[in-house]
């Protein structure tokens, strides 16, 4: 049985850039315990000598021709951003002025 402790949950939240209120945090802790317990069924399968498989279909990944194509306009994409100015994306200040 797993014990998803507070420290682990905190680390996962930091890595994922998420936060949870107390109620959701407790629910997620229980759920992750159950999920991790469930996925350990994988241990019952002998995978010695088996190569990992990242994609099920063996596909070539051909490169496109190295040719400039104007499919999209920069302004169209930037107009989706919550905050922009003079063609730049605006975010809260990263470095303190001092």
């Amino acid at each position, binding site marked *: 049985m797993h014990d998803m402790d507070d420290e682990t949950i905190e*680390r996962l939240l930091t890595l994922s850039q998420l936060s949870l209120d107390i109620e959701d945090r407790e629910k997620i802790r229980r759920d992750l315990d159950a999920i991790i317990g469930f996925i350990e069924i994988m241990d019952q399968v002998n995978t010695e000598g*088996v190569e990992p498989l990242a994609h099920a*279909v063996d596909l070539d990944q051909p490169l496109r021709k190295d040719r400039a194509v104007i499919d999209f306009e920069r302004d169209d994409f930037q107009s989706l951003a919550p905050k922009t100015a003079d063609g730049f994306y605006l975010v809260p200040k990263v470095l303190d002025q001092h």
Partner: protein
Amino acid sequence: MKPFIGVQELRNDLRAKKYSAVELAHFYLNRISELNGSINGFITVDSERCLERAALADRQLAHSNPHPLCGIPIAHKDLFCTKGVRTTCASNMLGSFIAPYDATVVKQTAEAGTVSLGKTNMDEFAMGSSNETSWFGVVRNPWNLNCVPGGSSGGTAASVSSGMTPLATGSDTGGSIRQPASLCGITGLKPTYGRVSRFGMIAFASSLDQGGPLAHSATDVYELLAAMEGHDPMDSTSADVENTTLPAGDRSFVIGYPESLFDDLDSDIAGCIERARLQFEALGHKIEVVELPHIDAAVAAYYVISSAEASTNLARYDGVRYGHRTEVSEDLLDMYCQSRTEGFGLEVKRRILTGTYSLSVGYFDAYYLKAQKIRRLVRDGFLTAFENVDMILAPVTPTTAFEFNSMKADPVEMYKQDLYTIPVSLAGLPALSLPCGFVNDLPVGMQLIGRHFAEGEVLAGGMAFQDRTDWHEHHPTLESASAL
């Protein structure tokens, strides 16, 4: 005009000028107005553009050689980007996102003359098996409004099933086309990974996601697949293979029957599929028992792989370039964190956290790499079975449509809903989900699983079955839906 008409009849009627494409679009828009309040299959109905496109289709129909789907209404799952019409992925994160381009699937189906009615509801970011996680509210099953339609393409399946559209697109990562098709009594195809372009289809788990068609019959699914498939230079995982063709003549197939999958299956559902098996034998196909190893472990491996890929894919939602951004934040990191916390629902957060866990230091080998090794064993199990059979007949779901909230509290129980669909997804194979009976007035589906890129064979198998049976011609009465 009446709902539940197949593509062939719609095409004949349009060409015989029984009604125009504009009149047909009005018919479906009216039906959506009547039913969507209770079904909630659509997130966005695009009446204005729909009627413009229908008028264009009428002009094309007046000339020679219009495309076979010219003037036929369609709906797109709300994870296919549509230029000028919002694409939400059923998430608050993308609640007001308007894509600046069309997904290849949207572009190709529009070029084929289909008339888009709008965008269908789904589980948030396609994560779910019940369509209970949508930011835009649950979708109700047209056969019983107290039951879920399945997920994640639940809005798509419920919209087709209730006759709000004759054709629709969906996507399948671990069963998201086949399971809702089964619970709603319609036909849906998960194509081979790489058959249909993923360009402009919002990513959940990139090594598994695959768009596909849903409709009332295998014949209609085939017609829509023809408009969706094809190599796309904009998707590097799109396969450069011949388009789907049906095998010539009345071919008899060797159909694999994985007996062990039926051991724990509800006996009434198993009975429906057993009768379908007998029907296939009566049609001259040969049945052979096959073994599919590691099915239970496949579900676990799938949740490791898909959550890991989701945690990576969804890292892009940071409130900077598009999507939801918090109003209140102290600094840059806090802005990322608050925007994501406000934008994502709990199931999406659970998957991101699960994925982050399995990819983190100390767990990568035990979970992620182990899952990828099991993925190979599962795929090789299918390839071995296909040495002796042309396709495999299997259940789609362990139960018929279940009631709202009956599984929501237990994510592991919900994940097990996909027991029969997930192995196929891990192996990247095509599978057709089609109706084969009823249990307690709720539809039961089965799936025909084919070799890689053998969509033509499973579609031919489905068409042969539907030629001799009428399960796909049963439709919900919707009396209570209209009354709401």
